[in-house]
């Protein structure tokens, strides 16, 4: 049985790599990918990286995207539109660390995309 995929997006690759490590210490069976920094490895976000991260974890249960600051949200929404997938949610104003952790826990329990998102919204 598949689990909801989680994409962690940040202006900095160190931030998402760190959050990924934090979650992976506890959860190993959840599809999580990261999109941090620009294509040149600088501070910012990249639609290409977000699209690749979506592809990495996409499955029929859907994908939840979490981001750090405003412009990352815009690129996340653009990437979702370009991906053509329907069952993707961009989590609005969800704290990245806590949200990523809770999403991973919920996803590992086999919850649906809507249930996972509802859980992170309560943080």
């Amino acid at each position: 049985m598949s689990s909801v995929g989680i994409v962690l997006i940040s202006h900095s690759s160190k931030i998402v790599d760190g959050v990924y490590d934090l979650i992976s210490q506890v959860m190993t069976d959840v599809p999580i990918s990261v999109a941090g920094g620009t294509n040149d490895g600088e501070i910012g976000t990249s639609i290409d990286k977000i699209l690749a991260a979506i592809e990495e974890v996409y499955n029929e249960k859907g994908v939840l995207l979490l981001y750090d600051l405003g412009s990352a949200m815009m690129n996340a929404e653009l990437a979702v539109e370009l991906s053509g997938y329907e069952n993707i949610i961009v989590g609005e104003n969800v704290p990245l660390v806590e949200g990523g952790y809770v999403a991973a826990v919920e996803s590992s329990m086999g919850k649906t995309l809507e249930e996972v998102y509802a859980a992170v919204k309560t943080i």
Partner: protein
Amino acid sequence: MLTTEQTIMWMEKMSIKVQENKEYLTSLDQAIGDGDHGINLSRGFSEVVSKISATNYNSSSDVLKDVAMTLMSKVGGASGPLYGTAFLKLSMALNEKESTFETFTTGVDEALNGIIMRGKAQPGEKTMVDVWSPVVKLFKETNEFNSDKLKDVAREAAEATKDVKATKGRASYLGDRSIGHIDSGSMSSYYLFEALAEVLSEGAK
């Protein structure tokens, strides 16, 4: 109203303005944002000019579509998705239609709606919307292009953001401290309309 050649000239002029004012845009953004606006836009529009100068186009719509895609993929900050969305909407409005003042007016209106949709900003929040809104209003209220008026409206609107408190974007974290600084995205939007005004007034001579 806007030929394919003029569209290319518009982007070349915008690129020159952004390179010339790179430090100024950066200083505006450093005061109340993350300081990457000048760097991101100068890089983005250099990429735009390299792309469009190496391609043959049959319409201004096709030029603007490539401008949009280049900015979206090459600019890591907020200006990439925002300007990218604006140019994409303008491109769609001009697609397969005769470029008249009316279609262009529809185009800038839809570009503004695209910026609002993407950035979830409203007028008065100290963002580029504060320049695009009065510019769209000017286009809607007139029935022919007036480059002097366009420059005046856009410049005044950009300068007016100085006294506004930011409630959107990175500057909103600063609250009252954002007052007293011009919004960098509004300033670069002014350069964009100034470039358009210059290209179209040259064409009229």
